[in-house]
Structure formats: C-alpha cells, structure tokens
C-alpha cells in the first residue's frame, strides 16, 4: 500500500512539503539566521536582505526566523490535535459499532450531544472557561472533534462487521482483538486517512485562527496566525507583511488536503491498480 503511495508524484510532493516543513520546525534553532525575539526597531519593515531573508516586521524582528519557529506550534500542535481526536474517535467508534447494545447507545447519545454544538463556538467557550492558553485550544479541539470520527468509524465498523470475511473470522474462532486490529482497523484506515489529512488542514487553520484572534499562542511567541494578526495592523501601509505567513498556511493546508486524496487512492487496492 505504501509502495503505491510512493509512486504517486503528487503524494510525494505533499509528503515532501510536510516533511520539509516539519524538519525546518525541528531544526529551527539552527536553521534560523536570527533570534526570533530580538528586535531591531531602527530596521522595522525592512525589505529582504542577506541579514533578514524575508525582511523584518513592525518591531524589526526577522520574519524568516519567526516563520521557522512558528512551524512548531502550527504543525506540531495540529498533529497532536489530530492524534488525540483520532485516538479517541477510533476507540469510541469501534467500541460502539462492534459491540453494539448498551455501549453503542451510551456512546452515540454522547456523540449526538457533542455534534449539536457548533464547533468554533464550543472552542471559544472552552478557552474562555479554562483560560487563554494554547493547551486549552488543543483540548477543546479534541473534545469537539472526536464525535465526528466516532460516528464515521461506527458506521464503517458496522458495515464491515456484517461482511463475510469478518463472519468467517468469527466462525473459525479468531478473537475480538485479532478481528478488530487485522480486519476492522485496516479497512477503516482507508476511510479514516482521507478525513484525517483533511482535518489536519482544519486543525492548522484552527490554531492559526485562534492565534489570530489572540486566543491561542500568545504574543511574543512566533506563530503564523499571530504573525498574520500583527501584519493585519499594518495591512494598508505594509501589505507585504502578510505574504509570508499567509502563503505558508495555504501551502501547508493544501499539502494536507492533497495528501488525503492520494492516501485514499493508495489505501484502496482496487483503484490503485488501474
């Protein structure tokens, strides 16, 4: 399956973008030419130069360095959000779909309640309740998002539980754990992968949005959304300030979405071979 993925140029490109970004984020302290916090007020809004590859912002801080350091909260926190969401969603969804009965009823009623709230509002409410902190944003995102996954995975699980190969597996006496991990999860993974990579894009946007609104990552810490927010203040006089973080967010979200499509193709053995 993975071999299929590596043959697809689009998938390679997307993974390349994501990996490269992640690598830059990890290596930020070494890759960045300047200290992201050091301001040089005389040099504010400077254009690109050898010292400041992407120029400086309104406090004279190196935009390029801030971009590199900004990868960390943007990319890693969104991945963390997705891991939490998927983990919780898969456990709940599979439990509901495979065991049915009371377990199903309880989980699905909770899911119904969760789904009846508009997600952005809930995140804002949770952040307001727990205090402005990026950790609360992550917790709130997981809290609001897992229900979507639980419902989707439950449907898929029910679909596959009735399939003959699962029935056969049960009839020869394979354990629940074996059936769940070897039959169910790989089958569900295909459907999950698409949703998950699309939602990684959503999580990136979400964290950036909340930082833009001043609810996520706090002021001096570099983050793309927060940088956009700062750039917004000088939108009329220095519009070029918005280019770097804006383009970066678009590229990353786009890569996630496209990778989702490629993953779906690769995980389905039938479409892949045509």
């Amino acid at each position, binding site marked *: 399956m993975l071999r299929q993925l590596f043959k697809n140029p689009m998938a390679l490109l997307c993974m390349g973008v994501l990996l490269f970004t992640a690598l830059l984020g990890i290596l930020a302290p070494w890759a960045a030419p300047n200290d992201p916090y050091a301001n040089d007020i005389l040099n504010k809004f400077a254009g690109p130069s050898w010292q400041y590859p992407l120029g400086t912002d309104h406090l004279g801080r190196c935009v390029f360095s801030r971009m590199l350091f900004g990868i960390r909260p943007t990319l890693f926190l969104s991945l963390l959000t997705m891991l939490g969401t998927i983990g919780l969603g898969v456990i709940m969804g599979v439990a509901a779909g495979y065991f049915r009965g009371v377990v199903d009823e309880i989980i699905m009623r909770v899911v119904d309640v969760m789904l009846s709230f508009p997600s952005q509002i809930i995140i804002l409410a949770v952040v307001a309740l727990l205090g402005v902190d990026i950790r609360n944003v992550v917790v709130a995102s997981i809290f609001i998002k897992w229900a979507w996954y639980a419902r989707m995975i439950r449907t898929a699980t029910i679909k596959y539980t009735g399939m003959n*190969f699962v029935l*056969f597996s049960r009839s020869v*006496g394979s354990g629940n754990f074996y059936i769940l991990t070897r039959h169910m999860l790989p089958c569900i993974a295909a459907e999950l992968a698409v949703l998950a990579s699309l939602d990684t894009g959503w999580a990136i946007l979400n964290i950036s949005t909340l930082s833009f609104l001043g609810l996520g990552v706090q002021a001096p810490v570099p983050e793309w959304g927060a940088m956009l927010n700062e750039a917004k203040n000088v939108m009329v006089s220095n519009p070029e300030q918005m280019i770097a973080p804006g383009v970066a967010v678009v590229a990353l979200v786009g890569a996630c979405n496209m990778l989702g499509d490629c993953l779906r193709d690769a995980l389905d*053995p*039938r479409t892949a071979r045509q």
Partner: protein
Amino acid sequence: MKDPLLVVSDVRVSFLKEHQKRLFGRERQQVLRGVSLALEEGECLGVIGESGSGKSTLGRVLAGLLPPESGAVFINGRNLYGRGKRDAAGPRHGLSVVFQDYTSSVNPRFRVEHAIGESLRALERLEGRVVDKKRRVAELLEQVGLPASCASRYPHELSGGQLQRVCIARAIAVNPRVVLLDEAVSSLDASTQTQVMDLLMELRARRGLSYIFITHDLTCVTYFCDRALFFNAGRIVEQVDDMKNLSRVRDPYARRLLDAVMGIGVQPGDLRRERADLLPAGDGDVMGAAS
C-alpha cells in the same frame, strides 16, 4: 449405534420487523420455525429452498454466528451454544463455512496466503501447536487445484472460481468434520460449478468430510448430494433420503420447484425419464400446486 455428527433440534430464530405497525411495536418475523435435522459422518446433505426461506439464517446458526431463540445445535455431541464446561472444551472447529458471496468473503486487503493463514492461526491457537504456515498454505492450494503462485495475490486478482477455491481451502484448513457450503457454487458459471463440485467430492473422499450444501439450484443437488431437504418459510417441508426418489416428492412447494427445473429440461437425463413415466399421475398434482 453412533450418534450423528451434527444434530439440529427444533431451532427457532426470529428478527425484529423493520416496519412496525405501532410506534415502539416489537413485532417479530419468524425466520426459522422449528428446524430439526441430523447429519451422518461422511454424508452430503442438500438444503433446497427459494430465496428468503431462511437457508442462510440456518447456516449462520450452524456456524455459531447467531444464537437461536430456542433449540440446540450439537456437533460431535457438543452443544454449540451451550454454556457448560463440557461444551466449551474440545475442538471448536467441527464445522466451517464457505459463503454465498465470494467477493466479500475474503478481506480485500489480505493476500491469499494471509487469508488461509488466518484459519491456520485459529487452528494453532486451538491446538496449541505451531503450524508451518508457508508449507501448509502451499499444500492447501495444491489440494484445491490452484498454483502455488496464487499465494501472493490479492483477491481481486483472482477469478470467481479461483477465489471460491481459496475459500474452500481456507475452510478446510481448520480440519473440520463438516463444511457448510452456503450457495457456494451458485454465483459461478455452469462449467466452473461442475469443477468446484468435483473438487468438493474429491476432498470428501480424501478427508472424510461431510457437507451441508445450501442452494436453490436443484441440478446441483442431484449432481452432488446423498440426501436433500426442501425448505420453505423456515420449515423443512420434505425430506428425500434417496436421490432416486427425488421426483416422488409430495409436498406442493417441493413439487413446484422440481417441476420448474424439469420443465426447462436442464435435469440430468435419468430424472427426465422418470418424469415422463410419472406424468399421467403427476399432472393434476402439479396443476393443483401451481394454482
């Protein structure tokens, strides 16, 4: 006298109806209404019935996938749905299944070797000994007449007949006493059907298997089975112990089925001849059944 290999006594199953007349109604639809049968060692029992008569449901009960509301299934004298200690112990794999729809009966993500390996793994767990999977898979493939090169293929890379053979290999991998074939050949074309049935007969001779052959195709039953049961609306309506007497069935439903097949003349020659000398007596009967 030895006990029969498989005994089904008065099994009843019903499902909640999809369309209830009243709000919160709990009307149930009876699918099996007291089915009893016995299968002897080395025997091949045909179960014939029209669509929706509950054949596959009976199959699911026999395979241990659907606990019946009442009644019991004994395989090798062990109650399949029993809760006692004696029932839980002993070999679990008295019976194994080949399903109607071969396209969904092998996980599309499993290579053939893994699909068969799954049965071998279940066998390992049960008997607590290690099986050389690679060798055993090759042996099983050879037994069902497939080249060993199939082992690394995916299900969608095989033809229907080949895939059904894989399902058979997978079913006999657990060393069962009985194999339940739920319309195992119905979705194959005529010549492949014959091939698969010949294969099954050969396996039966070699391994002393018993078969329960669920189908709606009378021709296959006459070709393949020793005994036949006619199934209608969840009941056994007629039992034929000797296939030569097949044309003497009396139950109106069974008659109609038989007649439909013979009418278009796909029956093996001997049956058609029997029909000819039955005609004067049987005619009124048939008309009565059809109206």
